[in-house]
């Protein structure tokens, strides 16, 4: 039995919209789990059901062996960091941190000690007597963290806590949150739509789409072993190149063709031996997905020749745009690459990184 269990959780709003369709998830004590997905995918609704802020339509939530499905928030022993931080504006920083402790009937001295302790961790000791209006966004964020830390809850929930910060601050607070998690080992569920955030923070990522879980796994698994077309589309910046193609074999090499008829184009995916069990897919239509960083370029050699249309230098890497199979494909190369617009190149695709998806159920086609 896991520390936190979500059993076929479902949420339908009174207006008939089903935000969460069927969520099954098990989370171990001390894990940092990120719910990731586009807006409207049900991740926030799931978190709010965990918090007790949203009524559960069907299913159950078990925390530490106790069914909390229908308990009000205050009886769940949880803490939460809100998107707007929800640092109460009429209380000083110290009062904000102390209020939940007061509700827990802690004695005054213990409260004062606890406030000092978490303030030190969150580096807000100097602001304890200020009001939130006198603090910057980043400082308010730290107050929210301190307040959540102080209550020592069984479960720590975070609802897009970084989305209101500017880009630079976001990265530093991200590091800070990770550090806190490492020190406290609090079981944490973090909701975001930002994949960089998710990949940086998570022990496990839960990718969600349209009220369902698409995939659960470590950052590496989610990025490299995308089980569904949605995941491969969603993860990665720039996103993976995806094209509907027909597979064919030509002189021992695997070829993907698109367009059909006169304007047919094809892409050489490499030696067929690199794709065990591919025979059954010959002539079939599939979705082909290749990440931009898994494509290399070389001198024109007759295979996969194309010309570069756009060059976007980014300093640490360079993005090239070219026409492949009738679509606009992106190629990501390390460092500053010296390439002219219109230059002819040959594309080199890493056969081990090619991902194929079923056109019907949009699931990954396993080749082994």
């Amino acid at each position: 039995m896991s520390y936190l269990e979500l059993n076929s959780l479902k949420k339908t709003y009174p207006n008939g919209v089903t935000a969460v369709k069927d969520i099954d998830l098990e989370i171990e004590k001390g894990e940092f789990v990120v719910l990731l997905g586009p807006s409207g995918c049900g991740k926030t609704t799931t978190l709010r059901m965990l918090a007790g802020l949203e009524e559960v339509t069907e299913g159950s939530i078990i925390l530490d062996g106790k069914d909390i499905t229908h308990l009000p928030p205050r009886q769940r022993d949880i803490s939460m960091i809100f998107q707007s931080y929800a640092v109460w504006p009429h209380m000083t920083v110290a009062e904000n941190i102390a209020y939940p402790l007061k509700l827990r009937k802690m004695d005054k001295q213990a409260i004062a000690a606890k406030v000092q302790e978490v303030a030190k961790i969150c580096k807000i000791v100097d602001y304890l007597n200020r009001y939130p209006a006198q603090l910057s966004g980043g400082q308010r964020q730290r107050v929210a963290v301190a307040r959540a830390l102080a209550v020592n809850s069984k479960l720590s929930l975070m609802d897009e806590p970084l989305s209101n910060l500017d880009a630079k601050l976001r990265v530093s607070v991200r590091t800070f949150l990770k550090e806190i998690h490492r020190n406290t080992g609090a079981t944490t569920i973090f909701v975001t739509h930002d994949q960089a955030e998710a990949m940086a923070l998570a022990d496990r990522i839960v990718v969600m789409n349209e009220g369902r879980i698409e995939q659960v796994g470590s950052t590496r698994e989610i990025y490299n072993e995308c089980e569904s077309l949605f995941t491969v589309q969603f993860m990665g910046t720039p996103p993976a190149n995806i094209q509907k193609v027909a597979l064919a074999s030509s002189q021992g090499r695997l070829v993907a063709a698109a367009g059909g008829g006169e304007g047919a184009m094809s892409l050489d995916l490499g030696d067929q031996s690199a794709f065990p069990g591919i025979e059954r897919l010959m002539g079939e239509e599939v979705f082909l997905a290749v990440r931009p960083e898994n494509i290399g370029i070389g001198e024109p050699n007759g295979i996969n020749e194309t010309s570069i249309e756009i060059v976007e230098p980014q300093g640490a890497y360079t993005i090239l745009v070219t026409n492949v199979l009738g679509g606009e494909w992106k190629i990501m190369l390390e460092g500053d690459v010296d390439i002219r617009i219109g230059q002819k190149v040959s594309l080199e695709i890493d056969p081990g990184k090619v991902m194929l998806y079923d056109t019907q159920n949009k699931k990954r086609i396993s080749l082994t």
Partner: protein
Amino acid sequence: MHVSRRTGFFKSPTWFLVPVVIYYAAFWIRPTISVIIESFTDKAGAFSFSNYVRLFSQEAIRTAFLNTVLFTVGSAIIQFVLAFALALWLNKKFRFSNLVLFITLIPMAFPPAAVGILWKTGLYRFGWINSFLCAIGLMNPANPVDWMSFRNLNAVMLLIVVDTWTVLPSVMIILLAGLQNFNKEFEEAGWVFGANKFQTLKDIVFPIMKPTIITAMILRMIAAVQVWLIAVMIFGYNVVPFLVERIAYNVDVITFAKYARKDAYTISVIVAAIVLISVSMYLRVSGDKQKGGETT
């Protein structure tokens, strides 16, 4: 903000404000000053407090003063409690909540004279209030209550009920605006961190809403001290004296009495003073509201 493109005082666009300033000088400042002067001079034009002394020696004025205070405080308390409850309820979006909001706003649109008649048609012996009470079995049709025979405190309380019916929507709408601007996460943070619904209301919602609540209440008080029409329409003059009712009485009924004008002037100065004190309180609160900063 704009920097004025053209320089020079005479080309400044603020010159367009001159007509407004003149209008206010003529029709606001001048009459205000003259009414103040009138209230502090005797018939011969010499400075004196005699108007105030005479006024407060009248039983009716003292009653009017007391009634106005009673009415203002009573209606403020009742209307705040009801309006807040209603606003909290309507703020929870439910099916048809917009329709319900629409219905609750209807009384706000009633002109005072229409309110007066609406309630008069209800309060007389054969009126709809008694009819309704009989229809639901709370009253014996053989022995209806004559509400219009109510006097003193009972009459004031009756007027508070009538007033509440009319103005509750306008108080409610201010509070509802406050609640809608209220960041829901403040409340949710309260629940998550262990507060029950009552504690959240008391420790979080009320304190954060305080400026809005005070604003609504002060605006209410400004209107309440000027009550007169419903009192006169339901009970007639002299039955439930209020400050402005006394002014109307002096102007409308005893027009040619020796001190009618002087009395009316003096009472209107008192009313204006009460209103101005309330306004300055309002300004201080709304100033605090801005200083308190954005709460989101």
